[in-house]
């Protein structure tokens, strides 16, 4: 159980920035614990997909992005949202289907988007976000903007035709997209091992003549560095494929008996939990003291409590709004 996080710390990762990153990872974890609780109590209908265990991948990637950079996310997108700077109160409100939610209660867990901050939305369709990311990069190119698109998807999505078409198109047009496959080893009950005849998914980059790289997605610094490099690369050379190896601690969705994986496997990965790993590094490197770290943990906890409070006080959307928002004027 290596704490590899010893990689060099770049200057822009100031204490403030790292505090914020650690806070966001914790917010994500705490947010989802609340959500899981709500679902288990039947306080929310529908389903949700938790990214607990994958926070370093989401937050580490997004830590490289400006507000005007863009992301497309997935059904397992809470970390991406928080990484991209979403307002947690309104995110929680959306999960609870409230009027103050990002989508006024119309989207829910699988469709949270925040276009004002470059978050083009979660997606209920596996592989559905990739073509959208490519199109967003076309806008950047046409408008000569110096930004990039980060396109998140899973090891399940990598077998959809949309992956192939999207990466190929981005490759020939040299579009500034970083394709990040968060390989949490399973697509619902189907393991990456069973669904593909390859071990290292980054070989798929070679089909498009673009660089591919596999990284430890539970190591915040490794993710951060890889995306930093990829960002610089993408702006001038076009797309890149990153495989971020990680693991989801929870079941696929709220109804999952976890029959397809062993307790041992889950425990092994829990030992690689990115949150304590980041904390350990921050302490070892003396970037933050134990007290400061405790403070951030408390803060994260309070932020989520506040979000719950906010969301609980938010009204349900009026049924009168049901027909609105289909067409733009």
């Amino acid at each position, binding site marked *: 159980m290596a704490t590899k996080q010893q990689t060099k710390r770049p200057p822009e990762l100031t204490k403030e920035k790292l505090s914020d990153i650690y806070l966001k990872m914790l917010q994500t974890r705490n947010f989802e614990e609340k959500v899981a609780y709500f679902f288990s109590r039947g306080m*929310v*209908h*529908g*389903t949700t997909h938790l990214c607990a265990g994958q926070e370093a991948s989401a937050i580490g990637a997004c830590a490289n992005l400006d507000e005007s950079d863009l992301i497309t996310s997935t059904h397992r997108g809470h970390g991406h949202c928080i990484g991209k700077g979403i307002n947690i109160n309104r995110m929680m409100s*959306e999960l609870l*289907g*409230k009027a103050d939610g990002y*989508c006024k*209660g*119309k*989207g*829910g*867990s*699988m*469709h949270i988007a925040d276009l004002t901050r470059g978050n083009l939305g979660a*997606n*209920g*369709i*596996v*592989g*559905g976000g990739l073509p959208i990311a490519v199109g967003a990069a076309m806008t950047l190119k046409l408008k000569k903007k110096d930004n990039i698109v980060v396109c998140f998807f899973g090891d*399940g*999505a990598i*077998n*959809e*035709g*949309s992956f192939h078409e999207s990466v190929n198109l981005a490759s020939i047009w040299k579009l500034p997209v970083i394709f990040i496959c968060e390989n949490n080893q399973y*697509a*619902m*009950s*189907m393991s990456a091992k*069973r*669904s*593909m005849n390859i071990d290292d998914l980054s070989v798929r980059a070679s089909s498009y003549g673009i660089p591919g790289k596999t990284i430890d997605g539970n190591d915040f610094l490794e993710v951060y560095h890889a995306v930093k490099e990829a960002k610089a690369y993408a702006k001038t050379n076009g797309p890149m494929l990153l495989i971020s190896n990680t693991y989801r601690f929870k079941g696929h969705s709220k109804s999952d008996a976890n*029959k*397809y994986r062993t307790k041992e496997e889950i425990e092994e990965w829990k030992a690689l939990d990115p949150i304590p790993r980041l904390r350990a590094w921050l302490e070892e490197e003396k970037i933050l003291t134990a007290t400061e770290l405790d403070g951030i943990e408390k803060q994260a906890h309070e932020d989520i409590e506040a979000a719950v409070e906010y969301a609980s006080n938010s009204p*349900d*959307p009026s*049924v009168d*709004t*049901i*027909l609105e928002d*289909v067409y733009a004027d």
Partner: protein
Amino acid sequence: MREITYAEAIREAMTLEMRRDPDVFFFGEDIGLYGGAFGVSVGMFEEFGEERVRDTPISEAVLVGAAAGAAVTGTRPIVEIQFSDFITIGMDQLVNQAAKMRYMFGGRAQVPMVLRTPAGSGTGAAAQHSQSLEAWYAHVPGLKLVIPSTPYDAKGLLISAIRDNNPVVFMEQKLLYRRKGEVPEESYTVPLSKSDVKREGRDLTIVTYGRMVPTCIEIADEMSAKDGVEIEIVDPRTLRPLDAEPIIASAKKTGRVLIVHEAVQFGGYGGEIAAIIADSEAFYYLDAPIRRLGGLDIPIPYNPELERNAVPTPERIRETIQGLLA
């Protein structure tokens, strides 16, 4: 008689046919050990093994097309698409390949496949997991389209669909999966393309299918008890090719027609039913305009109260009936 759920009835149909016919096999996402997203196939992997119950990657285009390719070469595949919304990814294979092969090849091929898939809203899964797009498949010559409304029909229709020599889209209703009904243990068939009068009545005809059938029956029973109104309910069950006669006959008999479905009303299957009636002999017997009640003209929203209101509610159905009878 024994009661089992709609989901169990579907599993039983598949299981019986797989025992009977070694050419029947089954594949889809998470249908093996996991038992399917809605638990429909629990235990089948254990019984039939991984050659005949095959978990697949998330690749709907090849799933649908491979079913066609397997079928045209002599087997009887059942492919499950985890939510009917995802057929969109395999749409070319379904509509341009599976449905047209026989005709394009001058009748010298047959494509005996079944595409099973859950449809409908009501589970809080929002716009991309809740659609009822049956109108699309109903419009495609070469496809058959079945939507069962009871466990009994589900079992018998699925057995017929598996034995049928054409591509059959079998749309299951999520909100009915846990609903119980009487189902014989043995194998039996309910013929395709045979509409079923689910309730007899003289005052008004409701044409409906799928999950709206039990809802409409309840309302009809209630109104019978309360107001003495007798509503006839006709369930086409197979939406393509449609057995229109019983619908026209009922419209002639009652003179008042209401068509109910969950799918978005505009462009929905109800339009076809209304058009058939309006161009039939029944036209001359109508005492009122033909009324439709379908889903609102919106994607399905997430919030439960919005979601409930996006499709015909019992209250709206009742009101519309009263309006028609007034």
